[in-house]
């Protein structure tokens, strides 16, 4: 092996790579410990192992989870996060409920198209004009809220129909929202792992310049990543709308924060190009568990916020530690 030039310098590199994986193992070790601790905490909490509490946990996980899967696409594509995703979710609940009179299927199609377009436009602006993703999403947030309140007059939509109730029905033993979420998560992971779009998202997220030099147009990839995020968000929107039998600008409030928390706690890199839906899944469940447990143990909402903030901070610090 040493007969060829340049190989001599390889040995340190390979050791360094092993070292790198050791560091990664350390990070997953910490994550593992955290998960085990939460599970012990959960089992020892009275009332946790009841059907009601688990059902409510799974419902929360399903609603936040769909949005978090969408956010994963945005983060992976190198665009950090979208502030507007909660607002576009709210707007989609309104579109869905306003069009439910046309029948469930047309309303679903409209809702998904609407949310995909809303996010796709942002993706196009960000990709094509290389605009700052955070600024664009903040502007979009404001514009979505503004136009929605202008159009609806600030009132929610409460159709007198139960056409959407089927979305909340059980699929055998599995609650409908959970089944929908599992479908979104599996589809998201499959897209990332086994399609050209998925690969391109990783490449562009790692380095848009390098991707361009490899013959990939980064803007197109970013656009599709946002469309994917919009579709995932729409899934959450119709589930929430069906559950509350209404469309309202309040429905999506806070979802962008919960989603990005789940993405980061799961261990997807904020710099893009590294992570997966699977990790987001872990992050979503972890955060929802913590929240549920705190409620069961009688802690207030303020403590929930504090704790989630701390967990997100720890997740970010852990990423930083691994990188350096």
């Amino acid at each position, binding site marked *: 092996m040493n*007969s*060829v*030039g*340049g*190989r*001599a*310098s*390889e*040995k*340190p*590199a*390979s*050791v*360094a*790579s092993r*070292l*790198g994986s050791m560091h990664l193992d350390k990070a997953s070790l910490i994550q593992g410990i955290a998960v085990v601790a939460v599970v012990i905490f959960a089992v020892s909490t009275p009332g946790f192992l009841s059907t009601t509490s688990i059902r409510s946990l799974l419902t929360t996980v399903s609603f936040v989870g769909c949005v978090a899967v969408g956010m994963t696409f945005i983060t992976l594509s190198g665009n950090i996060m979208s502030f507007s995703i909660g607002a576009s979710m709210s707007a989609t609940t309104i579109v869905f409920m306003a069009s439910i009179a046309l029948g469930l299927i047309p309303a679903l199609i409209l809702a998904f198209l609407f949310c995909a377009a809303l996010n796709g436009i942002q993706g196009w602006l960000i990709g094509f004009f290389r605009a700052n993703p955070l600024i664009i999403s903040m502007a979009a947030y404001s514009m979505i809220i503004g136009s929605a309140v202008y159009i609806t007059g600030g009132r929610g939509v409460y159709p007198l129909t139960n056409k959407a109730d089927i979305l909340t029905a059980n699929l055998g033993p599995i609650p409908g929202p959970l089944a929908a979420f599992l479908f979104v998560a599996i589809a998201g992971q499959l897209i990332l*792992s*086994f*399609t*050209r*779009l998925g*690969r*391109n998202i*990783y*490449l562009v997220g*790692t*380095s848009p*310049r*390098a*991707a*361009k*030099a*490899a*013959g*990939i*147009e980064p803007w197109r990839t970013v656009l599709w990543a946002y469309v994917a995020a919009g579709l995932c968000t729409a899934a959450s929107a119709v589930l929430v709308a069906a559950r509350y039998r209404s469309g309202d600008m309040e429905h999506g409030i806070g979802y962008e924060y919960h989603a990005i928390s789940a993405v980061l706690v799961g261990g997807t890199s904020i710099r893009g*190009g*590294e992570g997966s839906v699977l990790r987001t899944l872990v992050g979503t469940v972890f955060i929802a568990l913590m929240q549920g447990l705190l409620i069961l143990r009688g802690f207030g909402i303020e403590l929930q916020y504090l704790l989630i903030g701390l967990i997100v901070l720890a997740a970010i610090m852990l990423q930083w530690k691994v990188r350096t």
Partner: protein
Amino acid sequence: MQALPENQRTKSAADAGLSAPLFLGSPIFSARDLSKSFGPVNALKHLSVDFYPGEIRAICGENGAGKSTLVKILAGIDRPDAGTICFDGKVCPLSSSIEAQRLGIAMVAQELSICPDLSVFDNIWLGSVDVPFLPRRKELRRRAAEALRLLGAEHIALNTTVGQLTIGERQLVEIARMLTRNARVFILDEPTATLSDSEIDRIFVALARIKREGHSVIYITHRLAEVFKICDSVTVLRNGEMVGTVGIAAIDRKKLIEMMLGRPFVEMYPEHGYSAGDPLLQIEGLSVPGAVNDFSAVVPRGDIVCIAGQVGSGAEDVVRTVAGLVYNATGSVRVNGKPMRLGSAEEAFEHNINFVSGDRAEEGIFRSLSVTDNLVATRLRALSRFGFLNPNSLRAEALRLAARAGVDQRRLRARADDLSGGNQQKLAFGRCLGGAQAGLLVLIQPTRGIDIGARAEIYQLMHGLCSEGYGLLVASTDLEEVVGLGDVVITMYRSRQVGNYRGKAINMQDIMADIIHPLK
């Protein structure tokens, strides 16, 4: 305080018969028994070296030999695990670069360390311990201008924002910063990698002046011609160990390379001649505002066409345009006779044009992804069916491309970051070689920052591609490479095309004259 034996050499150097003292007098700066490891990697192993006043010392070695680690320790940026550093015979701990600066050690690091949003003036004085809390700007301006003048860079105004300068000019600013430091030891870590030959000549003049003033220069370079041109002696490192220090008169190019490699040297540039195949690429009247003015060229199949020019001459812009990365280019580019729309990387890719960037870290490869991911990055379109990919076929393709480009197949899962520069460049090549048909490869500085051994392999790879029917268009500032590699050499000077040489007409003098100061 501690007395040190003069000219102490390591055992291996003594064995090699290279232990004769080179200089009389006492060293200004010496390192004794330095060791440094990064995790389990031993970057330096018990290394001792002396530097003398009035001397320009080259430090040579392949990538990973420990050159940069050594100078980082000498400049106080990194701290050694063991060993001592003596300045003027006194042991100094060198715990920070500020302390090194106070002692009189100045350094130009390998990576640009310049703030693009500040002015040239601010950048020159950035981090200097000479600047008091309330500086007298007039005096500082005079000294900064003086340093730029020494480098023949008077045209760079002190008020210019550095972001507006070319990379070569930025490097000059950084060297000017070093010159203002009132230092006695000047360390330059590959200062010429981004510079053109005329700029390099100016730096050499400045270095010769430093030497005449009795100061010491430590000079790291991959370009051996520079070693023989300006250095008095050369220290060779290999795998973190000292091979020896020799006076420049006592060694020639071949011996130096053999010292670096630790084995006999095979000729770097394979024999090759102009084959005049069918025209693969035809460029006519290509212009890029502010960069290229009316450029025309033909790249035949089976040939390497080199565009030689200084940094900023437009040579790189021509290549970037052909790769579809310049949005405001005009003119006609035909591939295999078919016209190509400019400004779209995808379009260029569809015409079977593959691009190997000169900026390997940021553009050439995906650093944080695996070797496999890098190799198949350009092949996703070809390997997908209705947008879906089969992991097995991706793996098979990565294996195939790794074999073609000479990347170790056992390292397909390693991160690209963990590979040496030479192997990273092979990755960048490998991902271009997937197409069923031989296409066009366009390259910028294909061997920038790559050690001699890997360089020879890459040249061989390039010639191998020629015989498969690929055509290569290369932009390079390295004249030795251009002359050794090119079947056709086109010279450029300030956005315009100067000369066109073919086969036997290719010679260093004319090309040098063309790109520095053309008469035509």
